[in-house]
């Protein structure tokens, strides 16, 4: 099966790949100092207001790619361009982005609202405005009543909501998420999936979402980029044509099943590639 077989109906997504990308990776490679080639020759364009999932088995470099896009670490080869972002005096891009880690990564010594205020505080926003915007972000994720709760007083799902509120408070153009719901139970994950889609649908940011779950990627994204390991690379790029808003009934629809089947096949292919490399 070739990549072309997996890609259905590209024309149905006019706002997708054809448009000027928000971020554009060309020939990106990452060689770690221990000799692991985590990424090799990755080309990836991500369009404005897209919801893209990076799907792959562990060790395929999807998190590494996300971190490089975030500017955490340098690519060993290739370029990551932000055509529309502001550039500083040295010519480095200053894209407006936020990152959500696999763990909530909250400061345990600070209340929920103080945690959400952090990015604004670091940017030198006035305290009144920090508080107002953080309160708004917490309200957006349904935690208005928990402003003064400390992280340890919150459940796993609530902590992740605070983490998402912190990412949203700067109103980023790009939201990078590294398996954010992997550690949560299924019920909480479904609910957060729904809420994330609503947030995304209501505003205009781009999401790059790393996951190892076929079902999660098909439910959330417009586009699934499948990666294989050793070395980490993109092996398939498929569109998920189901319309938004997507709700619980989408999870049980034949269309969802069909997309899951295709995504699973791509993932199996990715595993096959990895085994073949041994």
């Amino acid at each position: 099966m070739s990549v072309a077989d997996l890609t259905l109906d590209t024309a149905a997504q006019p706002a997708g790949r054809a448009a000027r990308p928000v971020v554009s990776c060309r020939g990106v490679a990452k060689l770690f100092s221990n000799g692991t080639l985590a990424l090799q020759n990755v080309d990836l364009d991500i369009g404005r207001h897209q919801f893209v999932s990076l799907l792959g088995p562990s060790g395929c470099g999807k998190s590494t790619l996300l971190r490089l896009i975030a500017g955490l670490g340098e690519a060993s080869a290739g370029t990551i361009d932000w055509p529309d972002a502001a550039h500083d005096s040295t010519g480095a891009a200053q894209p407006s982005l936020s990152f959500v880690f696999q763990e909530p990564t909250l400061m345990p010594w600070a209340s929920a609202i103080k945690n959400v205020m952090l990015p604004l505080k670091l940017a030198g926003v006035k305290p009144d405005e920090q508080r107002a915007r953080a309160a708004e972000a917490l309200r957006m994720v349904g935690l208005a009543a928990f402003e003064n709760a400390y992280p340890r007083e919150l459940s796993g799902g609530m902590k992740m909501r605070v983490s998402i509120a912190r990412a949203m408070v700067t109103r980023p153009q790009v939201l990078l998420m590294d398996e954010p719901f992997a550690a949560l139970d299924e019920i909480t994950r479904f609910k957060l999936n729904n809420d994330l889609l609503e947030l995304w649908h209501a505003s205009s940011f781009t999401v790059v979402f790393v996951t190892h779950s076929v079902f999660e990627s098909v439910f959330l994204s417009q586009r699934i980029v499948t990666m294989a390991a050793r070395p980490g690379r993109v092996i398939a790029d498929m569109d998920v044509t189901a319309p938004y808003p997507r709700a619980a009934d989408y999870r049980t629809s034949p269309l969802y099943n069909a997309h899951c089947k295709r995504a699973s096949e791509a993932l199996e292919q990715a595993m096959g590639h990895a085994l073949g490399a041994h």
Partner: protein
Amino acid sequence: MPDTAPAPVITIGDDAPPVVLQERRILGVPASTWPKVLMPLFVGVLALAVWEFLVRYNGIPAYILPGPLLIAQTMVTDWGTLSGSLWITLSISLAALAVAVLLGVSLSVLFAQSKWVELSFFPYAVILQVTPIVAIAPLIIIWVNDVKLSLLICAWIVAFFPILSNTTLGLNSADHNLLNLFQLYKATRFQTLLHLRLPSALPYFLGGLKISGGLSLIGAVVAEFVAGTGGSQSGLAYRILESGYQLRIPRMFAALFMISISGIVIFLCLSTLSHMVLRRWHESALKREN
């Protein structure tokens, strides 16, 4: 020790209002705290009673082993001299602790700024720590003319290291993802220090402070034993020496008790401080019900 932990909040689902569990209080103190206070107190009183009984029953003379009642009596009659000495010993200990905190924290912040500075200077801090204070005390007393100041320096040397080493460890223990987050939001070095590294180091620092609190007292006492200076300006250690020479054993015990009680009070104060600061967020201060 008053237990001021907030009532645990139980949350049911994400949207349900929190249910607050109120613990029963007796005289304003949570019921579960009373055994923690009463049990050790009971053991202490029992031990003192046995001691008093043994001394009386066996007719042990006071110059060998005085009973607790006689010691208490001596503490009252000699309070004038002893309280003056207590104040001197305490002021030296607390001043040494304050300087240890100031220098320990400053130096560990400096260490956290550069691996090279840490690599270059940390071994000397270790040397300062492992050299027995009784061995350096005579030198310091010779070099420094002022007795009080030389005692303070000795106490500081002993109290300094736990704060330095713990705070350095804490500053380097900030969560890796949080460090990445700060990097992502282009935080300056100073912002990262203030908002991330220092709060991360707080539990470690407080752990070091608890150790140093006791050590500063020990340092002050040991140094005074070595100095052995008399006069009206002497601390509790000299009172012990003096009482030994004069065979006033009950007074010796009274001074000894005062040192122990001071140590316990310092420890309790620092534990309470630590608990107050950490109670809302740190694992060490949390109550678990499983």
